[in-house]
């Protein structure tokens, strides 16, 4: 099969609700992508035609059931490589998506690393080996290395676990915005797996330690009493 090499950055259309959409967009910085976020299927359809993306990322668990209809649409006589997001346990939706010809599925919740690997694999399958992978990116002034699972903090390079990294990306991609514990739990763990646990607070504590962030005077992760956590926007 002849692959169409890309000249510039690949255009990626993200049809996903917040705060996940911001997490997806930040994670895509591990490649050379230009991303555009829309939050409903109708705008997704319009953007497919107008903007002609090279890759479509669509959340099938959004409130809008017509999002399934975005899969398999031909744009300018080409099929658009597509990855769908689907909730853990939802076999019906996954089969329907594969039946419509989706290329891959990312099960929500996911960690950034999985999205990077699946996106990269599909993009290289579709457009050749020239598709770039950028292991080290800047996240709110922090240098994060996906391959070595490290973050540079001053002269230290603590290792982040996959979940700590996911938490950092989720918070940092929604700066200034308070994310509730439930919201974080749903996005990263799935309430089902760890019901009734303090897993979010424990991970925030560990992440703060590694980032040398003090809870009373934080540079990165602020506590919003009674609500949750907020990543402090860069001054």
């Amino acid at each position, binding site marked *: 099969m002849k692959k169409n090499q890309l000249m510039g950055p690949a255009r990626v259309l993200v049809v996903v609700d917040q705060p996940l959409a911001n997490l997806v967009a930040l994670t895509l910085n591990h490649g050379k992508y230009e991303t555009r976020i829309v939050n409903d299927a109708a705008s997704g359809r319009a953007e497919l035609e107008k903007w002609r993306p090279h890759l479509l990322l669509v959340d099938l668990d959004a409130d809008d059931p017509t999002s399934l209809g975005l899969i398999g649409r031909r744009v300018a006589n080409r099929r658009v490589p597509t990855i769908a997001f689907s909730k853990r346990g*939802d*076999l019906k939706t*996954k089969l329907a998506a*594969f039946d419509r010809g989706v290329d891959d*599925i990312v*099960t929500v919740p996911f960690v950034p690393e999985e999205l990077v690997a699946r996106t990269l694999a599909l993009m290289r399958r579709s457009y050749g080996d020239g598709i770039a992978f950028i292991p080290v990116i800047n996240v709110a002034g922090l240098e994060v290395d996906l391959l070595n699972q490290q973050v540079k903090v001053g002269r230290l390079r603590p290792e982040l*676990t*996959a979940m700590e990294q996911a938490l950092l990306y989720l918070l940092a991609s929604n700066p200034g915005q308070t994310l509730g514990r439930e919201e974080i739990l749903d996005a990263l763990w799935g309430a089902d797996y760890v019901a009734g646990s303090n897993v979010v607070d424990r991970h925030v504590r560990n992440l703060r330690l590694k980032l040398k962030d003090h809870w009373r005077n934080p540079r990165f992760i602020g506590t919003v009493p009674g609500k949750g956590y907020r990543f402090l926007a860069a001054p």
Partner: protein
Amino acid sequence: MEALSGRTRGGAKSAQGESPRALIVMNETLGSLISLTLQHGRYETQRSTNAEECQAIVREWAPHIAFIDLDLYQQFIHIVGRGLTHGHTPIVAFTRRRDTALKLSAYERGADDIVEVPFTLDEIVARPFALLRRAHGMTVTIVPKIRLDGLEVDLIEQRVRVGSQELHLTPIQQTLLYLLAANAGRALSREDLLATIWGGEFEIESNVVDRHIRELRVKLGDDWRTPKFIETVPGAGYRFKSQAAISTAAE
């Protein structure tokens, strides 16, 4: 419930009536879970972790698909991919490691899809469904309901029937139930359960297994003192009680 089946792409050879054959290269605990779950697609399965035996199986039995634990049996991607004389056998690789480099190299060496631990059963049914159609034009018949001894489970609706009672299970409870039932008669340690379902890097409290077992027992109406389904084996872990063979439910 009517079985779901996908459309076959134009021109693809249809293999109606033929059961898909799956080779499973995994340890006993995980292999049993995958093998049981594949009953939802009427697969025939063979298991091996021996290189020569795998080569023979590939040669003589010609599996349509292979499931390989990448963390333990990485070299089998090569062994399975090599022995092929008739087209491509899709390989589903499993990993607990969040390692992009490892995954990309697995894709390059012939893995078609990668399943992350923790996974739930829907992925084990849906991903091969797509791969078999892509590789062989084969339409897997999805069987939503199977019987696990006294239980009838419906993977699509995520329900379990015990006698006349219908219960709703969460994806993790369903996976736990299948894992125990797939290894019926054998005690699985907390470490086994944790490693197979949650994976090494999930970083959760160590009592998570006990908590989920407790919830599952409550739903199944199972008393821990006189359990019908899940026994506690002191010092060893948990064991699914029934020894009877697991049979596919009549549609």
